[in-house]
């Protein structure tokens, strides 16, 4: 900027001494930098307004009452506008899950790791197939539970076992276990 200033008129160049140039440069650089900083800071609210709003964030934790689920039954709840499967396993189902050699699985994890201490019969997973995001069958009464007695995704035929682990089909990973905790014996708080 100072360069252009200095060359605008012959007088300008002649009157600016060594010190003059330095001071001029400083003022212009400071002014343009201030404008730049102001511009960048202004961008912050413009960007952050697209993040989830406060009502969405407030709805990002969900409490589910699991006391009414009988062994062998499952419920579909809603967590962050997505399906959540909560299933109380029967002793047979627990045994089936524990009988599998974990190392042989596509996505190795044991039932113990996928459930909470003291509530190993309570399987809480997202109801979203890890393949392409369909909602698997098997949570509601009478639905196809797949070859391994857990969940079955009708879109491309992924079979999940009684611990929600992928056993057969194109899905790359087990059904996701969201962050959750038991706030009491009958209520879980997801998220």
């Amino acid at each position, binding site marked *: 900027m100072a360069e252009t200033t200095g060359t605008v008129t012959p007088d300008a160049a002649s009157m600016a001494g060594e010190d003059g140039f330095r001071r001029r440069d400083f003022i212009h650089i400071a002014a343009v930098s201030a404008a730049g900083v102001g511009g960048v800071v202004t961008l912050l609210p413009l960007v952050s307004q697209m993040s989830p*709003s406060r009502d969405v964030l407030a709805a990002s934790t969900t409490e589910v009452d699991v006391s009414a689920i009988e062994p062998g039954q499952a419920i579909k709840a809603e967590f962050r506008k997505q399906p959540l499967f909560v299933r109380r396993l029967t002793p047979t189902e627990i045994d089936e899950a524990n009988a599998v050699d974990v190392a042989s699985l596509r996505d190795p994890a044991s039932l113990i790791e996928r459930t909470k201490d003291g509530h190993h019969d309570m399987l809480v997973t997202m109801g979203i197939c890890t393949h392409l995001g369909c909602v698997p069958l098997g949570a509601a009464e009478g639905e196809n539970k797949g070859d391994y007695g857990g969940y079955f995704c009708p879109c491309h035929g992924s079979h999940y076992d009684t611990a929600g682990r992928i056993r057969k089909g194109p899905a790359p990973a087990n059904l996701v276990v969201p962050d959750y905790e038991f706030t009491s014996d009958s209520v879980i708080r997801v998220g």
Partner: protein
Amino acid sequence: MSFAWARQYEPQNAFMKWMDERLPLPRLVYNAVGAGYPVPRNLNYMWNFGVLAGFFLVVQIITGVILAMHYAANQTVAFATVEHIMRNVNWGWLMRYAHANGASFFFIVVYLHIFRGFFYSSYKAPREMIWLLGVVIFLLMMATAFMGYVLPWGQMSFWGAQVITGLFGAIPLVGENLQIWILGGYAPDNAALNRFFSLHFLLPFVIAAVVILHVWALHIPGSSNPTGVEVKSESDTVPFHPYYTAKDGFGLGVVLIFFAIMVFFAPNALGHPDNYIEANPLSTPALIVPEWYFYPFYAILRAFTFDFILPAKLWGVLAMFASILVWFFLPWLDKGAVRSGHYRPLFRKFFWFGLIPCMAALFYLGGAHAEEPYIMLSQFATAYYFLHFLVILPIISSIEKPEPLPYSITDAVLGGKAATEA
């Protein structure tokens, strides 16, 4: 652009040279607002408002696009989504207050820009086209602002829409059907709200396009200046950059300080409390007023209270539209050879003691209750308004004896001595 001594754009490096041969956008910018545009060296701060108007158009488009991400144009939820923006959306309150006050500031700087044009007769040849495009921009702004005010779907939104579309109903024969067509119904409702939202989103981009034409037309003759004497030689001008970029930057800072004071400390001062009440078609507010920037035209509309050959309502509507349309004819109504009000003694008197008090009165009266003595005062002001533009201006421009002009802009800057020598 049009001056022989305008500096030529020279690409600074190989990439810019490559760019210049394929898409000479940097060259265009250089010639439009860079060192390649010679500008009269004597512009005062009244010449800042064009750039500022452009700045507020950008503010309105950015904040408006953001608000549209969170707003829903449906009569059942529109009001609630505005409150959602205010309460839940990150920085939503800032976006909305900046948009609402941005509209006011847009009008403030545009009014100052227009009145600069009135005083310095910026509309005169060879700049008629700049002026005409400017009036088109102003009309588009009015339409955009009116439709934007309807969107929050508060009481003033609803009743404002009712009153303004009702104006079209005053037109003989087709009026009633025209009003129904504009609203898509018999009263403002979902159909009207949705089309206003659509058009409110579209029109700013039309404004931006006309602004480009406005600036293009400006670059043909170059900027006018406070003496009204055309540029004669290189010493009359300085390059736009850095001289006027620096001056505009300072002006922008000053205006932004006022803007920030309004947005952060008095964001509702220019709005009407009734618009925080959701629209209710069964209950009319005690006083229906538009936003402050429409007050002069609203005062003119309401000044016609008795039938005179035509119905009073039709007179009001005609006068309101005519009060802006008359600006289109200014270049041909004011035929004086001298532009600047500084050298036009008679014109100057009518400007400062006629037009300015008249406009100030209309601004005040448009927001007042429709009762005496405000009605009488607005009738006087309206009469003067039309007399000024349609009768006084054509007459004084042909009879007045202008004061001696400086020989050139340089002489005017250098002082009286040079002027008399010339």
